């Protein structure tokens, strides 16, 4: 079981959360070139190792936040509210 550290509620069981995918994507400007939009909508780094991703605490504070998690080991390295940097080793 994943014990996910919600920045607002503390560590909680994964069944309280919904996954939101890659947190590094940034929505392009509406008039950005088509290739930029294709990359944003479809292409993913899909790293084997640390992965920054979004989670939604639907059965708790109902906030979206970011988590850095190792996709090879499932170890959670950091979590932070949206817009704040993910700091590994910080007390989450």
């Amino acid at each position, binding site marked *: 079981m994943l014990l996910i550290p919600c920045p607002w509620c503390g560590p909680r069981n994964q069944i309280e959360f919904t996954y939101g995918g890659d947190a590094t994507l940034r929505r392009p400007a509406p008039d950005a070139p088509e290739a930029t939009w294709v990359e944003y909508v*479809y292409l993913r780094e899909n790293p*084997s190792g640390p992965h920054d*991703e979004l989670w939604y605490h639907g059965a708790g504070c109902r906030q979206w936040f970011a988590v850095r998690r190792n996709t090879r080991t*499932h170890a959670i390295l950091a979590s932070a509210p949206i817009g704040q940097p993910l700091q590994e080793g910080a007390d989450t």
Partner: protein
Amino acid sequence: MQRYSLFSLLGHALRGDDRWPRAWRAPEPKKSYDAVIIGGGGHGLATAYYLAKQHGIRDVAVLEKGWLGGGNTGRNTTIVRSNYHLDANAHFYEFSLKLWERLSQELNFNVMYSARGVLNLVHTPADIDAAMRRGNAMRLNGIDAKFLLRDEIAAWIPRLDCSPNARFPVLGGLLQPRGGTVRHDAVAWGYARAADALGVDIIQQCEVTGLRIESGAVTAVQTTCGDIRTAKVGVAVAGHSSQLAAMAGIKLPIESHVLQAMVSEPVKPCLDTVVTSGAVHFYISQSDKGELVMGGDLDFYNSYAQRGNLPKIAEVVAACTALFPSFGRLRLMRTWGGIMDMTMDGSPIIGKLPVKGLYMTGGWCYGGFKATPASGYTHAWTIARDEPHPLNAPFTLERFAQGRLLDEKGAGPYPWAH
């Protein structure tokens, strides 16, 4: 290769049964090959077999970082079917099912294809409409499909709870009679043996670490057993396609997710078909050893760990006991996980990559095992002729940028939703 037959069996029995030859060689890799296939699972070995058999390209190496069939070929739930709605998928998987039907004869290896039927249960009036629509689409594409009413299902599968008070009331089901199961390990072994007999070198414990690309064309594969020169590389490593593509500087529309499966303790025959339910996303069949083999959803987060977490196992077991209450008396014997290439439209990618001489078959989502023969057949065709076979022409990497998506479920670009 010594052919397997009743006579060879009798001959070996009379001579003590201890002189069977190795089914395939264990050669040292050569310095160069006409083609190199990365990945020694069903798809890679099938690609090598059809390259040698259909296209006369026999100077081929298959590189496997672990052992044959140790990835998803040995981790699936062994189901084969072609009950798809979209034309491109229907034609492709139906071609695959036709190859399955005579694969044991083709390879002189018993892959234990069992046409026990695949039944998709329907639980709501909307489910009935969707099943009828898909069944009609299948029949228009020449694929067998039959709608069964609740009473027919209750008589056929007595352990399924078809009572009106069931947690998931069974209203009927869409059956594909020719669907069924195939022994997964035998697929890897059968293709390996047949490819080896045609001259293909199968090299295990050899991991690819890089691709050498000069002037936009592949020239060599870098491996833990040295560099191998080649002008054609086929990538068949679903689960890790993103890593291989990254060696060529290509970013794919794929996320890797873990999918779990599990078996109960073995019991006497009690379920002679494959039962699935889309509403609870659950599928179950009984192996020839007697175990009930079952699976359900992804764990729903990116993973390369080849193991998942308990909440998904609990969901699968809950679905199982709701549909088959008597199976609640059984114990789970084993659970495991495999890494899926989840694409942005739920359909695979088979074809050329934007580097000359580089090809891939991947992005299989949940559906890789049943596609093995057709994947190998069309991948080999694409490698040999440098152009796709009509069956895999729709499955290009470019379809995402071109808006020609093959989204069977209509879920949009959320790979874990397919």
